[in-house]
C-alpha cells in the first residue's frame, strides 16, 4: 500500500538522533515544584490547598472550575510553600502552587490496579479521566474528557492515536510507544469503549520502524485496530492532516475532527487515560525529551509536573556555554523561554536547547512571491498574502482568505527564503480578530 | 410636468441663441476653412508640376452603393490632374495623382507627377502620421547624394513604374533606416496607382512606358 499523506508540508532536519535510542529515565525527586494552575485550554483550576499544608503525591490540589477545565494533582509529596506568581512557559507569568519536597515521594493510597476496568461503563470511565486531570499531551492540552463527550448528533466512527511525532528533535512519544505499547493500546481501547467506536488507528511516521513493529505486535490481537504508516513530513501529526492522510476525510473549515466522525488523541494521552481508568492514577508526570546540540547529555526523562527546567537540564548534564536559545517543545511550534526558571507543564513535550549560532532567525527580506509558502501550507492558505494583510491591518480581507484556518504549524515561515515572519504575523492577526470578535460579543 | 416643460423650453431657447451665434461665426470662418482644406493639395500640385500654368482635375462619377448593391448616390472623385503649359489648357507638361499607402501607423498620402512618358517627375508627401524620427522622416527631400545611401523623396525623380521597389525588395529605392514599412508603403502605393493609371494617361509615346 502506498503511504498516504496530505498535500503540503516540509521536511526540516529531523534531529531525532540525539535521543531516539535513549530509554526513558526517571528524574530524581526534585527539591521543589511549582505547579501552575493553568496547564490546559479553558478556565484555570481553583487551588484547594493553603500555604503550609502537607500534600501527598497524586493528591488533588486544585479543582476544575468548569466543564472545560481540569483538576490538578501534586506530583510530589511535601509542604505547600504558597501560591505564587512564577514564570509560566506559555503565558509568561502565572499562579502556581509551590510545593517543597519532603524527600519521600509518598503517594495517595487510592492508586491501585482494577482487573476488570474494561467492564466499567463509559460514564464511569469518563469520570475517572476527568478526575485524573488529563489534558491532551500532544501539545494543545485540550481537556480530554471534553473531547470524549461529543454532542449526541455527532456520530463518531473512528479513533486515531497520534504517534506521528513529526516535530523535529522530539522523541518522547517514540520512546513511549517502544516502552509502553500495551498501555497505549489499552488506552485506545478505553477510548473506543467510551465512544462506542469500532475502528481504531494508530498513526506513525515511517522514520520510527522500531515503534511501528512494536505497536503492530501490540495490536495483533485486536482486529479492529490498525497501525498506519505515514511518510515523514511535517506536520503529519497535526490532527486535520492525519485524518486526511488516514481516512481521506477533510475536517471542514472552522470545524473539528468530530464533524467527520473522528477523535484524535496523542499516544501519551492514551497511556495517561489507561492509568487513570485502570489505576485511578492522576496525571502527575510526563515524558520530556531534553535535546539539542547545546545539551550535554540529551535524554528522554520522566518528569514530575512542576519541576523547573533547570533541574531537568541539570539531570541531563547541564547545558553548554554555547547555548543560545531554550525552547519548550519542538523547533517548529515550541515556545522560546527567556531562562530555565520555568516549570514543566502537562504540555511540555520537550526542552530543546539550541546553540548560539542556531538561535537567531535571519533578517527579513521582502517577499519575492516565490510561492513556496503557498506550496507547503497544509491548510492551502496564502501565508504571504495573509501576513501582508495583517501588516496593513486589513483583517476583513484576511478573514475572507481564511486566516482563522491557519493551524500555526510554521511550515510557511520555515520554508520562506526571505525569512518572512509569516506565521508570526498570522498569529497576531488571528489574535486581533478574536479580540475584535470578543468585543463585538 | 408643467415645470419640466418650461425648463426644457428655456434650455431650448438658450441653445437656439447659441446656435444662431455659432451659425454667424461659421459663415465668417467657412470660406477660410475651405481654403485651408484645399491648400495642401494645391501646394503639392504646384510643387510637383512647377511648370504648369493651369492644372485641371480629371474627375469621374463613382456610385456609392449600400450593402445590397443599390446605388445610393454618385460621388465625384478626382482621378488625376493634367498640367498644361499654357493658360488656355494647351501643351500638356505632365500628370499628377495622389497615392495612398498604409504605413506603420497612418495612411500616407503622396502627390506624384509623371511626365508625358510616364516617368516620375516629382513626388511630395502630403500627409502622414508615422513615428516621429523614424517613419516620419519620409518627408525629407534633400538632393540625392550618391555617396550617402539615404532616403529622400528626390530619389523618385526619373524612376519608371518597374523601378518602384525598395532595396529590401530588390529595387533601387533606398529605404529609411529602420522604417521599411513606411518606405514600402510609399513606394508600393505609387507603383500600384501608377500602373493603374498608365493606360488612361494620354502619353506622348507609348514605347517609353517601362515594361
Amino acid at each position, binding site marked *: 500500500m502506498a503511504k498516504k499523506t496530505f498535500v503540503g508540508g516540509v521536511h526540516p532536519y529531523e534531529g531525532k538522533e540525539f535521543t531516539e535510542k535513549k530509554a526513558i529515565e526517571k528524574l530524581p525527586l526534585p527539591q521543589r515544584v511549582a505547579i501552575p494552575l493553568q496547564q490546559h485550554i479553558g478556565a484555570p483550576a481553583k487551588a484547594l490547598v493553603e500555604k503550609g499544608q502537607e500534600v501527598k503525591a497524586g493528591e488533588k490540589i486544585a479543582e476544575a472550575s468548569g466543564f472545560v477545565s481540569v483538576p490538578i494533582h501534586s506530583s510530589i509529596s511535601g509542604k505547600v510553600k504558597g501560591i505564587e506568581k512564577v514564570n509560566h512557559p506559555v503565558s509568561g507569568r502565572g499562579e502556581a502552587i509551590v510545593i517543597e519536597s519532603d524527600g519521600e515521594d509518598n503517594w495517595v493510597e487510592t492508586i491501585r490496579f482494577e482487573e476488570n476496568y474494561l467492564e466499567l461503563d463509559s460514564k464511569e470511565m469518563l469520570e475517572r479521566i476527568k478526575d485524573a486531570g488529563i489534558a491532551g499531551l500532544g501539545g494543545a492540552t485540550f481537556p480530554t474528557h471534553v473531547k470524549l463527550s461529543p454532542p449526541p448528533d455527532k456520530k463518531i466512527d473512528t479513533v486515531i492515536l497520534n504517534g506521528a511525532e513529526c516535530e523535529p528533535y522530539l522523541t518522547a512519544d517514540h520512546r513511549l510507544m517502544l516502552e509502553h505499547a500495551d498501555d497505549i493500546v489499552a488506552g485506545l481501547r478505553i477510548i473506543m469503549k467510551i465512544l462506542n467506536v469500532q475502528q481504531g488507528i494508530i498513526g506513525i511516521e515511517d522514520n520510527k520502524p522500531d515503534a511501528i513493529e512494536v505497536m503492530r505486535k501490540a495490536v495483533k490481537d485486536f482486529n479492529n485496530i490498525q497501525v498506519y504508516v505515514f511518510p515523514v513530513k511535517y506536520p503529519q501529526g497535526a490532527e486535520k492532516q492525519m485524518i486526511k492522510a488516514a481516512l481521506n476525510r477533510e475536517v471542514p473549515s472552522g470545524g473539528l475532527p468530530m464533524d467527520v466522525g473522528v477523535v484524535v488523541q496523542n499516544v501519551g494521552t492514551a497511556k495517561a487515560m489507561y492509568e487513570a481508568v485502570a489505576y485511578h492514577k492522576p496525571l502527575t508526570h510526563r515524558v520530556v525529551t531534553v535535546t539539542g546540540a547545546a545539551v550535554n547529555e540529551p535524554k528522554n526523562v520522566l518528569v514530575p509536573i512542576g519541576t523547573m527546567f533547570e533541574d531537568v537540564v541539570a539531570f541531563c548534564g547541564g547545558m553548554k556555554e554555547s547555548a543560545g536559545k531554550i525552547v519548550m517543545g519542538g523547533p517548529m511550534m515550541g515556545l522560546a523561554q527567556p531562562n530555565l526558571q520555568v516549570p514543566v507543564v502537562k504540555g511540555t513535550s520537550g526542552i530543546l536547547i539550541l546553540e548560539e549560532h542556531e538561535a537567531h532567525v535571519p533578517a527579513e527580506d521582502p517577499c519575492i512571491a516565490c510561492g513556496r509558502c503557498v506550496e507547503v501550507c497544509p491548510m492551502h492558505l496564502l501565508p504571504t498574502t495573509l501576513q501582508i494583510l495583517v501588516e496593513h491591518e486589513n483583517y476583513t480581507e484576511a478573514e475572507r482568505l481564511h486566516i482563522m484556518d491557519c493551524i500555526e504549524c510554521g511550515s510557511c515561515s520555515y520554508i520562506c527564503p526571505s525569512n518572512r515572519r509569516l506565521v508570526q504575523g498570522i498569529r497576531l492577526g488571528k489574535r486581533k480578530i478574536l479580540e475584535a470578535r470578543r468585543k463585538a460579543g | 410636468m408643467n415645470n419640466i416643460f418650461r425648463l426644457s423650453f428655456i434650455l431650448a431657447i438658450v441653445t437656439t441663441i447659441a446656435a444662431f451665434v*455659432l451659425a454667424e461665426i461659421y459663415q465668417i470662418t467657412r470660406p477660410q476653412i475651405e481654403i485651408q482644406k484645399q491648400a495642401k493639395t494645391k501646394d503639392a500640385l504646384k510643387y510637383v508640376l512647377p511648370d504648369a500654368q493651369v492644372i485641371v482635375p480629371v474627375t469621374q462619377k463613382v456610385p456609392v452603393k449600400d450593402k445590397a448593391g443599390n446605388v445610393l448616390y454618385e460621388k465625384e472623385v478626382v482621378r488625376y490632374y493634367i498640367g498644361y503649359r499654357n493658360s488656355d489648357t494647351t501643351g500638356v507638361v505632365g500628370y499628377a495623382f495622389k497615392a495612398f499607402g498604409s504605413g506603420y501607423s497612418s*495612411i500616407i498620402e503622396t502627390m506624384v507627377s509623371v511626365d508625358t512618358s510616364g516617368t516620375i517627375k516629382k513626388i511630395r508627401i502630403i500627409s502622414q502620421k508615422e513615428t516621429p524620427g523614424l517613419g516620419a522622416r519620409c518627408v525629407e527631400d534633400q538632393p540625392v547624394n550618391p555617396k550617402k545611401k539615404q532616403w529622400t523623396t528626390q530619389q523618385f525623380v526619373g524612376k519608371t513604374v518597374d523601378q518602384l521597389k525598395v532595396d529590401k525588395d530588390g529595387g533601387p529605392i533606398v529605404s529609411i533606416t529602420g522604417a521599411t514599412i513606411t518606405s514600402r508603403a510609399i513606394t508600393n502605393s505609387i507603383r500600384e496607382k501608377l500602373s493603374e493609371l498608365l493606360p488612361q494617361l494620354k502619353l506622348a509615346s507609348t514605347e517609353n512606358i517601362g515594361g
Partner: protein
Amino acid sequence: MEYGVFQLIILSIFINNFVLSRFLGLCPYMGVSKQMDSALGMGMAVTFVMTIASLVTWLLYTFFLAPTYQNVFYFIFDTPIQNVPDLTFLRTIVFILVIAALVQFIEMYIQKVSPTLYKALGIYLPLITTNCAILGVAVLNIDMFFKDGLPLPNSFINTLVQAFASGIGFTLVLVLMAGIREKLELANVPKPFRGLPIAFIVAGLMSIAFLGFAGFSVE
C-alpha cells in the same frame, strides 16, 4: 479608410486602446481603478453608454446635421440637396447635450427595469456624462467613418463596433489597472510615488507593454 469588423475590434481593444494610446477616459482610469469591483462596474457602464451614445449621435449626425442624402430635409421635405443646411458645426454642442440627456434617460430606465443592474451601474452613470471617452468616441466615429460629411461604406456598423470594442478595451485596462493597484496598496512604494504618481508610471509601463500589439497585421 475602410475597415473590416475584426480589424476594428483588434485596433480598438489593443492597438489604439482608448486609455493607453488615445488618451481618452483617463479620469475614470485613474479615479475608479483602486478596486476591482468598481473598475468592472465603471468599465461596463462606460462600454454601455459609449455604444448607445455612438448609435444616437451617428443617427443625429447623418439625419440632421450633415448635408447628406439621408438628411431629413432632403428625403422628407424634398429640399434640393444643395439647399440642405450644413449644421455640422453644431456637432459639439448637440452631442454633449444629447449625451447628457441620454445618460439621464438610461439611468431612469435602468432604475425602473432592472434594479440589480442599477445597483451595479447606477452610481457610475452620472459620473460618465462629463467623461471625455463618451464624447471622444462620438467625435472619433464622425472623424473616421465620414468623409466630407458623407458616411463611408459600413459607417453605421463600424461606428457600433468601434464604440463597443473601445469600451471593452477601456474595461480591460481598467480592470488590469485595478488589480495592479490593489496589489500596490500592499507594496512598499516609496512615499513620493504613492498614489497618483505610481499609477501613472504603471500606466506608462502598461502602455509600453501594449506596444507589443503595434503593427499587428489585421487584414
